[in-house]
Structure formats: structure tokens, C-alpha cells
């Protein structure tokens, strides 16, 4: 594990409840600003500075160089850059996510792997501030409707690994998106925050009839008793064209 960017005497992370009550950080261009984001961004930067991770998260290493290497033609350099991606921290989340839409599928795959490395490094024990910063970037990206569906799907699953209560509203909003709702449901099933359960309950009351069966499954998986909507997991639906041998 690469720990070189962490301070030798880390400060304690903020309490989970404090982190979860903080508004979402929007790192996107100013026209996409969400109320409260700048306050949250400032807070994350302050905490990162206190932890000694500010240079890793936002400072010394410029994500542009990472993306340039990953999108370049030198395969060995790209592989090394992928390994080093966690050093760029949250600042690299947006550029990497956007590069995941690169028409060159090999470039897109590299960038996805690099971004996963950042998410997994940020999710390590004792790195809540880094996790919060990465989470904030992912939260913004999944809400950008102009992005490709598969990209947002991948980002949702990344968010499922580190998301806190703060991720719940934007993920829950995607339960209304027919193309993303199943992934959003899965993510809410995984997020441990009680707010995820509340969001699933709320969605169950208003979702289209055909989607309620899946939501009921999520609720049952989280220990809820659900009336009606029996599981369809054993309902055979697929027909083969192969006939028995006479």
C-alpha cells in the first residue's frame, strides 16, 4: 500500500455523524454548483490540510499529467500511472471519470481502473477525509444527466464502496431513472447508512409497479417486512429454442 503521501502524524478524522451531515461537495464547474457545496469543499480542504493529505488530494500532483499518461500510447507508462493513481487523490476523480468516456475503449478501461484504485485507497481505515472528498466528486458525477449511462453505472458502483449518508439523496434520485434505477437500488442496498433504508422505503411507495418487486427485495434484505410483492426470483421466464432429442 502506498502510504507515502500521508502525514507521519495523522490527525483524527471527523466523527462519522459530522461527516455525514455535511452538504455534498460539488467539484464541477461553477454552473453546476449545488447549495452548500462550497462550504463542504472548504471543510474537506481544511480537514485534509489537518491530516496532511491536502497535497495528495488537491495540491502537488496535477491530475492532468495522470490523465495524459493514461490516455497516451506508452502502455508501460500508462500501467505505472494507473498504479500511482491514488497519489492524485480526489482531484483526479473528475478528469478520470470523464476520460472513462474516451472512445478508445482501452483508454477508457485504464482510466476506470485508475479511478477504482483511488476509491479503494480512499476507503482504507483511518482515511475518512479522503473518502469524503472522493465521495463528493462521485456524487456530483452520478447526478450529471449528460454523462453516458454505463459511465454513471460504473461510478455508482464505485460510490457503493465508500458512500456515506451524504450519497443517499443523489443515488435515491436515480431510482426514478429507468436505465439506472437497478444499479441505484443495489447501491442503496449496500450503503450502510440508515438513510439508505429510508430512501428505499420511500421509493417503494411511489415507484412504478414493475420496479416495486426489486425494491421489496432490497427492503427484505435489510430486514424489513414487506406486504405483497412476493419475490420473482424463481419465476422462470426464458425459453430455449433447443428441442429434446427424439
Amino acid at each position, binding site marked *: 500500500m502506498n502510504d507515502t503521501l500521508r502525514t507521519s502524524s495523522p490527525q483524527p478524522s471527523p466523527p462519522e455523524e459530522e461527516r455525514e451531515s455535511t452538504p455534498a461537495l460539488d467539484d464541477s464547474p461553477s454552473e453546476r454548483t449545488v447549495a452548500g457545496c462550497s462550504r463542504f469543499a472548504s471543510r474537506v480542504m481544511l480537514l485534509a490540510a489537518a491530516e496532511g493529505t491536502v497535497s495528495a488530494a488537491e495540491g502537488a500532483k496535477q491530475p492532468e499529467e495522470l490523465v495524459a499518461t493514461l490516455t497516451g500510447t506508452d502502455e508501460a507508462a500508462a500501467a505505472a500511472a494507473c498504479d500511482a493513481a491514488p497519489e492524485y487523490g480526489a482531484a483526479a476523480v473528475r478528469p478520470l471519470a470523464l476520460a472513462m468516456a474516451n472512445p478508445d475503449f482501452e483508454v477508457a478501461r485504464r482510466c476506470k*481502473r485508475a479511478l477504482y484504485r483511488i476509491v*479503494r485507497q480512499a476507503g482504507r*481505515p483511518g482515511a475518512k477525509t479522503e473518502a469524503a472528498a472522493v465521495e463528493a466528486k462521485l456524487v456530483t458525477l452520478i447526478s450529471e444527466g449528460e454523462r453516458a449511462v454505463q459511465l454513471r453505472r460504473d461510478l455508482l458502483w464505485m460510490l457503493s464502496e465508500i458512500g456515506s449518508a451524504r450519497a443517499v439523496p443523489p443515488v435515491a434520485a436515480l431510482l426514478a431513472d429507468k436505465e439506472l434505477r437497478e444499479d441505484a*437500488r443495489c447501491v442503496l442496498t449496500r450503503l450502510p447508512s440508515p438513510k439508505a433504508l429510508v430512501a428505499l422505503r420511500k421509493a417503494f411507495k411511489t415507484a412504478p409497479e414493475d420496479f416495486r418487486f*426489486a425494491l421489496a427485495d432490497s427492503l427484505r434484505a435489510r430486514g424489513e417486512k414487506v406486504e405483497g410483492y412476493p*419475490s420473482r426470483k424463481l419465476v422462470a421466464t*426464458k*425459453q430455449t429454442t433447443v428441442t*429434446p432429442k427424439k
Partner: protein
Amino acid sequence: MNSPVKRISRRDFLKSSAVTIGILNLVPSGVLARPGQPGANGRFVIAHIGVGGMGMTHLTNMLRFQKEEKVRIAALCDADDNRLEAAVENAGAGPTPYRDYRYIIERKDIDAVVIATPDHWHAVQTVHACQSGKHVYVEKPASVTVREGQAMVAAARTNKVAVQVGAQARTAKGGWYTCRAIRNGIVGKVTRVSCWHYANPVDEKPVADSPPPEGLDWDLWLGPLPWRPHNVRYQPANFRWFLESGGGQIRDRGAHQFSTILWSMNADNQVSFTVEATGKAPTRGLWDCPVDMNVVYQFKNPDWTLEWGQPGNKVGQTEFGNVFWGTNGKLVLEWEGGYRPANPEAINFKLPPGGQEVYRTDEYEDFNMNHKADWFRSIREGHLRPAVDIEIGHRTATLCNLGNLSYILGRKLVWDGQKQEVVGDEQANRLLSRPQRYPYVL
């Protein structure tokens, strides 16, 4: 078949050796006396779910059992009509073909299923089969997540069915000779077991996503996995090279090798350990399993180390194998104890006075047949604990899955096997399960 030891039935073996080897922890009271399940006194009615690759080997085995009038093959199932058609052709008249395994779950006349689908389907299909009262033979590795494995064990126990995991070395001669020799001190106290294995392949010629081929139901093939476009690099057998579906060599051959090692080390109940993995990711292609990989598992009380080396330190002549390093020397096991014979030192090993005998079944020379015969016997005898019972399969898969988890997270994990959780690592614990795409859920 010539056997150097008196043949011991698994039921007798379980009874006689339960105290000395601590197997009571695996076998709740009352189970040993259970009568056989439906079909135990006649021909088992069998269905095959997944009939490509290893699934075709299982079908070939079962056709032989059918010829011996021990089973009747009633159904064949695959999400790929092309594979299904080949299996129907192979099996001849009789079995009904299905694309959707849930038709098989519905059928009350079917006693048992053989599951050889991609790994990401194993748990869901096993649990559903158990819940419908069917016995299960499921390919290794048992599961792709720890929580899936737990659900499989629970389903087998709750529904009182036998679930055999297809790691055949525990019913093969190579594994038996090795286990017997190691347990009885051929190399003294074993402190380290190292594995060597060749690399995971690299997708050297990556291709773009494309529509699925005619006859393949991509939605059904993906099943519990998150939706994504079809790519020819996923299937038929290439699911193995994706961490989320196949898990690479450590979950393929590792599931065999680790099973034999745990058996030999008498460590099925040594469920807690630390695991630390490093690996070299592929530089191109869709496959994401590490090309090279090194994983170290540290067990305590008794203390020993298990090392997965890819390539590791190749001691034997074959492509993969492992070495038991003891206080009095070393013993090599090439492959995993199934396809290859044991080391001559193990074969010639004489059990010392008061030594510990090891369960052995010799119904068939072919170890694939033998493993299935052991499964049938566990049903007929009513104890429902085949040689690689699902609990053993789950523990083996846990080693494989946590090795991969440590690799993807890039950090050491401390595994509490009693609580079935990673100590102090919330992200790792989230990844012990994966929410499944509806309706392909446990």
C-alpha cells in the same frame, strides 16, 4: 481396485473419527442418523445446469452413472443455446432442455442438480436448488463473495440436503496419500505451505463491446452481475479472468489446492487468519485479474503460513503444485492431488502405530466419478456430509475471495472467521457481499 487400507465408509469414518479430528464442529448432533433423502434408494433423477466446459465433463460422468442405472438424467440447462444443443446431442433422448434453470427448480421429480455455470451464478442456483429440496453438486469455487458462501451453507443445513463442491482431490488418491502422510508427520511439523502456479492470461487483442452471439441469452448469462454490454472476452470460458466473476487462478486452481492443503493440515476449522496480497495488474484488455500475484495467509494456533505464488517458487515439474515445508523436510504435491499421483514418498509412507487414518473412497478409478459417487453416498447414507461439504467449500472459497479482496484493496486484511468479518475495515466488509441484479438474487 487395490487399496492399501480397509475401505471406510464416510458415515463410519465420520462416526469413528469425529472426536479425534474435531469434526463434531462441522456435524451437528442428529445428522449422522438421518435417513436418506427421496431418491436415495433408487436412481437419482438428475438435472445439469451449465453444460459447457466442465459441465460437459460432468454430463459425461453422469451418462456413465446412467448406464450403470444409478441415475436418470432428466434435464439439461444452459443460457447459451449453442452449448445446450451440443449437450442434448451428447446426452441423447430423454433429458428436457431448458434455457432458464428455474424450470428445473420447479420440477418436483428432480432429486439433484449439477451446477457448472460461471462462478457468479453458483450461490444463487445452489441456494434455490436447496430451497426446493434438491441435492447439489456445484463446481468450485463455491462462491464469489463470503456472504454468498454463508447463504449456501445455511440453505444446505436448513433444507437438509447434501451439497458437494467440485474440488475432487479430497476423494482422489493423490490428495489422500498426501493428506495421510502430512497428518502423520512425514515432514514433521509443517510451518509453511507454498503454492506455485502460472500466470493469469492477458487479453492481448482487446476488442470493443458487441452484441451477443445468436443463441446466447446475455441477460441470463450475466444474472446477478451488474448490467454491462456484451463483449466476446467474457464468455464462454473467459469469465475466469474477471475478478468479479471468475477471480483468476487463485479462485480456480487455488480452490483445488487450498482445499487439499486445508485437508492435509487438518485446518478446516482454523477459520481466522491474516491475508496480504500483491499483484501486477494487466496493462491492456478487459480482463482484470492480476497477471502475477503473491498472497500470504498467516494462521495462528497452530502457527503456519500459506503462500499463493503466481508464479511463486516452482519446486516440482508440473505447471502448478504446492510444497509442505516441515521441521524434517518437505513434501511436494504436483497439481492438487487429483489428476496427478502423489509424490512417491507419500505413496510409500507407512502409517505409524497409533497414526491417524484418513477418509478414502475408491468406488471409481476416475476421480471425477469418485467425487460424485461420494456425493451420492452421503445422500444414501443420510449423513448429507460429502467429502467437500459446502461448509468446507465455503471456507476454501473464503481464502480465495479474501486473497483477491486484499489485492484489489491494496492492503492487509485481518479476518475474523468466527464473526465472518474483516477487523476494522468498513470498505472491505462492504465488499464481502455484492448486491445482485434483480430478479437473479439469493
